[in-house]
């Protein structure tokens, strides 16, 4: 029974990773402002028979992890706003799956926090857009986020119990890592409006804290399966 649940969970994690087509690993030697290039085939998720719990470092504020968004040549403030909204709505949609599927209290609590904080960020963004009289404009990146979100939701929708908990929290780690990389490497450097720039700088610590929190919860989930 346990073995079956664990296998199901690992398969779901692998499938989630395969569904992530928006981002690619950092190439530190690559020059900036490269022409647009489609994503290569995604790297498979590490699937270990006995996953090692990840050590959490509560005080450390994580830096952007390896994956960065696909290079985008043209990105204006309206595109950035659309990307932030799409990112937040993505995590909100994941969190809404949790109450009826998760079994662990820490997963449920984490999801409640994601709902609260990401809804708050959306409120901040929409208030600013209203003030600036700016409408969000979808671009390829924000549309890809929505596609990816739908794919991942479909995968998680069929899971319950440990299979759901482990898949959800693994996805949260990946999601926040990508969001953080997008903020650092795309959104903050390209934002032209000073208030949008400041908003992104204020949101960044929240995303970093969410990533560290997700890594903590993931370590607990893996160590107590």
């Amino acid at each position, binding site marked *: 029974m346990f073995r079956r649940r664990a296998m199901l969970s690992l398969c779901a994690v692998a499938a989630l990773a395969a569904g992530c087509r928006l981002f690619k690993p950092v190439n530190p030697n690559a020059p900036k402002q490269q022409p647009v290039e489609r994503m290569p085939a995604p790297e498979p998720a590490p699937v270990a028979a006995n996953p090692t719990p990840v050590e959490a470092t*509560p*005080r450390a*504020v994580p830096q952007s992890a390896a994956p960065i968004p696909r290079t985008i040549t043209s990105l204006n403030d309206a595109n950035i706003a659309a990307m932030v909204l799409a990112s937040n709505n993505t995590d909100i949609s994941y969190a809404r799956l949790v109450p009826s599927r998760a079994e662990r209290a820490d997963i449920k609590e984490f999801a409640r*926090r994601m709902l*609260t*904080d990401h809804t*708050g960020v959306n409120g*901040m963004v929409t208030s600013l857009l209203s003030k600036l009289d700016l409408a969000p404009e979808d671009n390829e990146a924000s549309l890809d986020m929505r596609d990816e979100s739908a794919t991942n939701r479909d995968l998680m929708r069929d899971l319950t119990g440990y299979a759901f908990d482990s898949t959800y929290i693994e996805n949260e780690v990946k999601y926040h890592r990508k969001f953080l990389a997008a903020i650092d490497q795309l959104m903050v450097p390209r934002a032209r409006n000073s208030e949008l720039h400041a908003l992104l700088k*204020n949101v960044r*610590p*929240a995303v*970093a*804290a*969410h990533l*560290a*929190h997700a890594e*903590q919860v993931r370590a607990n989930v893996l160590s107590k399966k």
Partner: protein
Amino acid sequence: MRAAASGTGLIALGCVLGTSGASTPAAPAPLAARAALGRVAIEHFAFAPPDVRVTVGDSVVWVNNDAFGHTTTADSAAWSSPELGRGQRFLFVTTRPGRFPYHCAAHPVMRGALIVETRP
């Protein structure tokens, strides 16, 4: 809102203050006349400074400057504020020496320590 702490004796008084900046608790705290005030800002998802050092009888006030809700919650459960919105404050009066690690219950990676020293 006002919540008297019980159990450990560390906190004589804990209360949430509004955004007006008032810092006087509803009831006079012991040693208030000679007590100092330690201040901790909650901003950018961190307690600043992360460690605050006071003397027994001193007060400590946490002020949330973030747009996100945070708490100050002792690891030992000696105290826990409600979730503080932007501009809200939480005040404690200490009565016992020791080192008291604390965290934000909403974001457990946010950590700090209250260090209460004996009055010379």
